[in-house]
């Protein structure tokens, strides 16, 4: 056990606990951006910096293990000023696209800017203008919105072992992209979706074809059928705020028919057949 203090509050935590985790245990919120609870810290953004008494450096709370006797300070004018400047810098390299962004209202950068009360831009905008990659039927990659948190790359390389994504280039022109700069469709990407579900901003998001579907449904010359994957009946429940695991099969069929689909096919039958074989 390690005993330390955070903002004067004593903490007792197991060895190896990071400052961020320890702070959460005593209800102290240290703002983060690149950090994701599923992933090892990449320590890229520099938002979660804190002070440790006796050192004039600032340490990243996300990746620094707390040590015996540390007196940690998470908020003071200097720390907040540095955090704010870093956030302003990140915003100066991010398009003001919120209204038409696939991640509008579910964007971690947007939330952070709101939390810091950013009302105007301190630094001039510099956007690289790298074209989007919409070569697959699954995702759109928009490198301009990337904040270099490295989550997608960590997921793709270390967790999924696919190695479709990596960082390319150096410094200000560094960017995340399929390895060797190829298009996503040519890369080893298996469209697992882990990158987009971990992306904090709109840099990787699912291709949205809702409008196309509406058009087909409203076209009298089309006979529209729909087929759903086994997992959707549960996932949609979560999206509408049901307890996780709620089975929505009946409601799902109904709503699809109401939308105008002439027939609803369920892959779960095929899945059952596969299991029986």
């Amino acid at each position, binding site marked *: 056990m390690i005993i330390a203090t955070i903002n004067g509050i004593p903490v007792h935590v197991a060895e190896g606990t990071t400052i961020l985790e320890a702070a959460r245990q005593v209800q102290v919120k240290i703002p983060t951006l690149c950090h994701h609870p599923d992933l090892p810290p990449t*320590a890229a953004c*520099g938002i979660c910096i804190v002070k440790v008494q006796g050192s004039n450096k600032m340490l990243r709370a996300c990746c620094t293990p707390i040590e015996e006797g540390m007196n940690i300070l998470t908020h003071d004018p200097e720390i907040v000023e*540095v955090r704010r*400047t870093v956030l302003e*810098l990140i915003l*100066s390299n991010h398009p003001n696209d919120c209204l038409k962004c696939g991640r509008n209202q579910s964007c971690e950068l947007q939330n952070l800017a709101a939390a810091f009360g950013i009302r105007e831009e301190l630094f*001039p905008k510099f956007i690289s203008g790298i074209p989007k990659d919409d070569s697959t039927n699954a995702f759109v990659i928009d490198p301009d919105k990337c904040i270099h948190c490295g989550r997608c790359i960590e997921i793709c390389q270390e967790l999924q072992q696919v190695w479709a994504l*990596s960082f390319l280039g*150096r*410094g200000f022109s560094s960017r995340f992209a399929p390895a060797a700069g190829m298009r996503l469709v040519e890369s080893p990407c298996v469209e697992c979706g882990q990158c987009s579900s971990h992306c904090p901003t709109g840099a990787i998001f699912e291709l949205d074809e809702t409008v196309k579907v509406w058009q087909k449904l409203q076209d009298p010359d089309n006979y529209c059928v729909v087929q759903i994957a086994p997992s959707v009946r549960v996932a949609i429940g979560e999206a509408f705020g049901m307890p996780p695991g709620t089975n929505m099969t009946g409601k799902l069929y109904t709503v699809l028919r109401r939308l105008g689909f002439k027939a609803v096919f369920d892959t779960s039958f095929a899945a059952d057949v596969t299991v029986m074989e």
Partner: protein
Amino acid sequence: MITKTVLIKDTTPGSTSGTKEFFDVFTAALRESKLADEIRLVRAADIGVYNHGIVLKILPDNITYANVQHHDIKRIIGVTLKHGNPIKDLLYQPRAYQLRLVLKNCGRIDPESIDDYIAHDGYRALSAALQAGPDTVIREITASGLRGRGGGGFPTGLKWSMTRSTPGNEKYMICNADEGDPGAYMDRSVLEGDPHAVIEGMLIAGFAIGASQGYFYIRAEYPLAIERVQKAIDQAHAYGLVGERIFGSDFSMDLEIRLGAGAFVCGEETALIASIEGKRGTPSPRPPYPSVKGLWGKPTCINNVETLANVPSIIRNGSAWFSRIGTENSKGTKVFAVTGKVRNSGLIEVPMGTTLRDIVFEIGGGTASGKRFKAVQTGGPSGGVIPEHLLDTPVDYDNLQKLGSIMGSGGMIVMDEDDCMVDIAKFYLKFCVDESCGKCAPCRIGGYQMLNLLENISRGNATLEDLERLRLIAKAMQKASLCGLGQTAANPVLSTLRYFEDEYREHILNRRCPSKKCTALLQFIIDRSRCKKCGLCARSCPEKAITGDKEHGYTIDTARCINCGMCFETCKFGAVERN
């Protein structure tokens, strides 16, 4: 018959006729003493002594006199030239001595011959270390006070003992030879001139920490260094000094070279490790430090070339010998690559505590142009500038840090009054912006934003608020960057702001560059009184902004002028003025 040669040089800054005058007076005096046939007088271009008035060097006696006056000539002829005796009060007393510990073999031994190295006490320290045992070796290095020469100044003995005390039977030793500061070539010279010393240092370090494998991480731009180190490893292998059971002991260690692909950030230890592992060279958070979890996740010790080159002589001569050299907290010597606007540029090695003034003026000889010295930049792109009034500071790790610079790996760039501090800050920052790995936001975006602010200042498109913005970003970079590159990248900007804020304000408020370096702020005009109406300027102007003819003379249309400075360069009569 000529028996003696006297080299004469007037070393007074700015003096042009002194040498000739003195030469003539001396010639006359020799003729009077009937020695003209025996003594040869030579007007020398460079004697290696600077700012000491008239300097004479008498050969073959190798006597150097400084600050010689005309009335001394008689004495010199009578005492020294006739009888070969030196005159005490005229003797040149160098204030700053170079002390070559690291470079002692460079240029003296054949770097491609292990026998030559052995003949100069080579590998004796390794043998002594193997007999003494790792704990004694670490104790000696700790007691010597040796600190890392790569820039950080971390105590070497402490680093070794930390790596040694981490449990694990597989440990690694790495020699960091990814030298990349602009204008710095200390490590290259040591690797090229004395590769065996570094290998011996590596082996001793490896023995002390318990490593069985060592890597030289050398940048690929150093082909000769790579060739010589490889050759030296092969030779040492053949002699049983590298490999299995070295000197018949239980200690075995292999050495291999890994090449860096030219990324400056790979000099940072965690990025260097990633690079050796074949990954993208980006830093990772510390802790865990390499001494706990380094190469392939094993305890690893990384030392700079110069640090390791110091090790054999410390083991041979003892820690007490080494710790007598230098200052209280910085022991030994430091190699510097003195470049820039200095008369005598090159590699020097001085004891810690030598003042900057001695380095720049005594050893370096002052500015090459004879113009006023302005500042010296130490520590490369992570360092800062030090102005003239602080030149008497003794060089050591702590002093330089207090002045807003760092010791760094040993680059030292001298600047005179023609150097604009905004321009200098821009140059170093540009280097770091180009070399940033792009991983963390403060460094990647902060550096780029600062560079643009500096660009605006040098074009006269800035406000005083931009200085505050610079400071704000600089602080965020210092505090929130992940690695040393980002944390120190703002130093050149901060230190120029600290000592030369006037120059920044002059650019901003009066749109004027006092050093006439920022061309966007200059205005070129033709001085009619000096113009010979030759028309060369008009022909050289790429924008056809100079109009006129050979009859009426020429004028520059400032609206079309792009401030390229071509006319200023081409005019042979100094008729083009820049303001």
